[in-house]
């Protein structure tokens, strides 16, 4: 029986990334930022704790919620930097032709690059584990919730990674690819929130509840509803607006919509790096 093979592109990417000081610099900054936030949240809640308004478990769950949102936001803004140069970097380095000439299919090239990005994200997640150890000390959070958070982070990284790879495959310059990725993310995060807030505010004044909350299906943060269903539902869905039945929630829709966009991006990226898809044959 043939031994299962790791995509050689993934092995190469990981080897190069681990030899680069940039990866370690990014991990250090990430941990410093996340750790600093954890200390700030803890200190601000410790007053409540000493006054007897809050229990340790409440402080623990508040800290967990802050860390979850912060970590997801960091990952959302980190992934374009990691995936943005994945293919455009090969073009700039003039290695894309040599890569295309191998037995790797365009799909294997794209997925190799994507898994390399996700592997780095996993490294970031693992590096942040001690912070969650601190949360466990305080209580109020179960290991299942932490595991679910990591799964959500990976899913969000996968989605953002697919979108960024598409831009990386489209553009010849890494800078252009990264700018386009961030522009899309700003649109999906900020744009959807602003549009939802404006439309909902305007229309609910006259007509009560409206379906404009569906815009939030484009927002990657909505997927956090998987972990905090009540919180997300309360924020996004207007009072008693019962669009979804049978347990179907807004974050399910967000997963579907953003998953479909990611699949489309992956397909477009695969097509963009296939040199034989670009030509037109006359006969």
């Amino acid at each position: 029986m043939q031994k299962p093979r790791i995509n050689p592109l993934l092995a190469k990417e990981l080897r190069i990334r681990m030899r680069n000081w940039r990866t370690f610099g990014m991990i250090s900054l990430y941990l410093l930022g996340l750790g600093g936030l954890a200390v700030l949240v803890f200190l601000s809640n410790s007053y409540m704790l000493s006054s007897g308004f809050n229990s340790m478990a409440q402080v623990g769950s508040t800290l967990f919620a802050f860390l979850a949102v912060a970590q997801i936001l960091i990952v959302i803004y980190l992934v374009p930097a990691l995936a943005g140069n994945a293919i455009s970097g090969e073009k700039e380095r003039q290695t894309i032709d040599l890569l295309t000439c191998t037995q790797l299919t365009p799909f294997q090239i794209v997925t190799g690059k994507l898994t390399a990005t996700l592997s780095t994200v996993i490294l970031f997640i693992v590096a942040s584990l001690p912070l969650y150890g601190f949360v466990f000390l305080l209580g109020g959070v179960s290991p299942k919730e932490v595991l679910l958070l990591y799964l959500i982070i990976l899913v969000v990284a996968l989605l953002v990674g697919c979108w960024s790879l598409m831009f990386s495959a489209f553009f010849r310059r890494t800078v252009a690819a990264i700018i386009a990725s961030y522009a899309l993310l700003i649109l999906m995060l900020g744009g959807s929130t602003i549009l939802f807030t404006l439309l909902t505010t305007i229309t609910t004044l006259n007509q009560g509840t409206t379906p404009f909350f569906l815009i939030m299906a484009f927002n990657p943060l909505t997927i956090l509803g998987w972990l905090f269903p009540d919180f997300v539902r309360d924020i996004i869905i207007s009072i008693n607006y019962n669009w979804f039945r049978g347990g179907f929630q807004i974050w399910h829709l967000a997963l579907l919509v953003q998953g479909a966009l990611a699949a489309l991006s992956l397909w477009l990226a695969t097509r963009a790096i296939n040199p034989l898809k670009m030509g037109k044959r006359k006969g």
Partner: protein
Amino acid sequence: MINVKDLTKYYGNFAAVQGINFNVGRGHIYGFVGPNGAGKTTTLRMLATLLAPTAGEIIIGGVNAYGNPLHTRKLIGYMPDFFGVYNDLKVNEYLEFYGEASGGILEDLRRDIPSLLELVGLTAKRQDYVNNLSRGMKQRLCLARALIHRPEVLLLDEPASGLDPRARVELRNILKELQAMGKTIIISSHILAELSQVCTHVGIINNGLLALSAPVSEVLARVEGDAVISITMADRQEEARLWLLEQQGIREVTLVNTGSLEAVYSGDRLAQAGLLRELASRFTLFEFTPSKGNLEQLFMEITEVAKDAETKN
């Protein structure tokens, strides 16, 4: 081994390659010659399945290259004119990566890489980072990369560009070794004298049209009629000049500043040998060198004709 039929490539309205046809047999070295922008790189990229032809067909090893690119890529090793490397990898890691990406098994590759590095003269650099290699070494590494999956066909686009004379001689020797191993090679180059030394066949492309495609011996025979022979002798140059002018096939003899004679001669190699014998029996010869720029001469003629036609239009 390679059959190219009516190969055409348009970029918008610009015809980069216009219906070219040529065949390359197994074990042949085919020199692809042409001025900048003639369509050499476009043709090689189409052969390497990196560019879809607008029309026409490429058959490599009996397989339609465009119809089955993955199979074709197994058969070919491609070295582009401009290429990058992964500077953070070591030489052996670089080759292992491309070997695995080309379908090789790591254990087999680790066994094969030393002999490949020996062929390209990089054995001592095996553990060095690619970043630390010189331009010529990177060129040789790229050649080793093109060979890592043991392809039957090698497509080399300007492999000698940017190399110093020593590296060029080394490259020529490698090509001869590869030919001895039975590889079929298509090589594009501007250095015609070098091509005539290593190639078995030559194709001259200009403005996207293949002006000539023939065995090198045939091409040389076509131009040998007007070879320039440089003759250096101990003394009696003027006497020799007058004697040469009386010989059959000699059209013109000039005494150059260095004291040598330059004779414009029409005749095949056998007649040239006869002339040398006669000359040596009468005068003290130091040197008798027929010009080596014959292929260059033909290339200039062909491209000049095309240029004239273009100017008239």
